């Protein structure tokens, strides 16, 4: 296979970045959930 280094870099960076971002979202979600009262953790309701 030609251009293997470019392929690994392109796909690796893309999937790696998306994976890291997804992991960071899950972590932020857990941390924030602990700070917000349970009755305010309803996603689809709004006071506005």
């Amino acid at each position, binding site marked *: *296979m*030609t*251009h*293997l280094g*470019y*392929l690994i*870099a*392109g*796909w690796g*960076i*893309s*999937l790696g*970045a*998306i994976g890291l*971002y*997804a992991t960071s*979202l*899950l972590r*932020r*979600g*857990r941390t*924030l*959930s*602990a*700070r*917000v*009262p*349970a*009755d*305010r*953790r*309803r*996603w689809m309701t*709004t*006071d*506005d």
Partner: protein
Amino acid sequence: MPIRPATADAPEVVEAPPSTASRATRLLGGACLLALATLLVFAFVLTNPDERVDEATNLVTGQSDAVRLLYVHAPVAIVAYVAFSVTALGGVMVLWKQSTWWDITAASSAEVGVLFSGLTLVTGSIWGRPIWNTWWEWGDVRLMTTLMLFLIFVGYLAYRRTITDTRVRARRSAVVGIIGAINIPIVYKSVEWWENRTLHQQSSLTDGKLEDLTLLALMFGMVVFLAIYVWLMVHRFRIGWLEHQAETSGLSAAIAERRSQADDAVRAAVGDTGPDHGNAP
């Protein structure tokens, strides 16, 4: 979402989730991982390298295996357009309805869009090195307009952090998001409008030159990355919602505390001034 069963003393209660994940997002996440694995099989096993033999000269032309980068580059670019379009739509809805829900949606989509447009620039650059013999071309209109789109929405996210008042932040960033999204059709059409000022090829999807399997892999890649976008958006939205709730609950607590202090101060003042002043109207 855990459900506490009904007992003799208490009715059935659906407890709030301890994270932004839910059964639906877990299912979607699993489906995304499976689809991504399938896309990798399409990109690296099932599709052929781009090699065309010129019958007159017998020379082999085409992108060879570098074409396999397009199965990630084109989908992430399309998802970036979708993400910034959602930000613009959210901006319109914020200005129209003053909706917190749409403000959080717009901001969430901008953040995910910045990730995908950044990946568009990176994968395009990596693809350009073997094909164009350059990592970057400053005079190329497609590259520069894409870079501008990326920077505008980085600026959008930075601007949001400078404003603490949630309503002012929502209105002002809505305007920035709408203006920023005007760049999307310019990026998309740049290869046609300024075709002499770009190395970038015109749309591969509309010129009808792609093999069936290549086209299928590209379309499937778009579906996969759109599903990933939805998964990221759901989680990012829920984080935005939690941040909003933390802000407002913190504010409510501060207001309640301040009111309590004020009441104490009034009671103390009334007590100090004696019964004559205390009974004054």
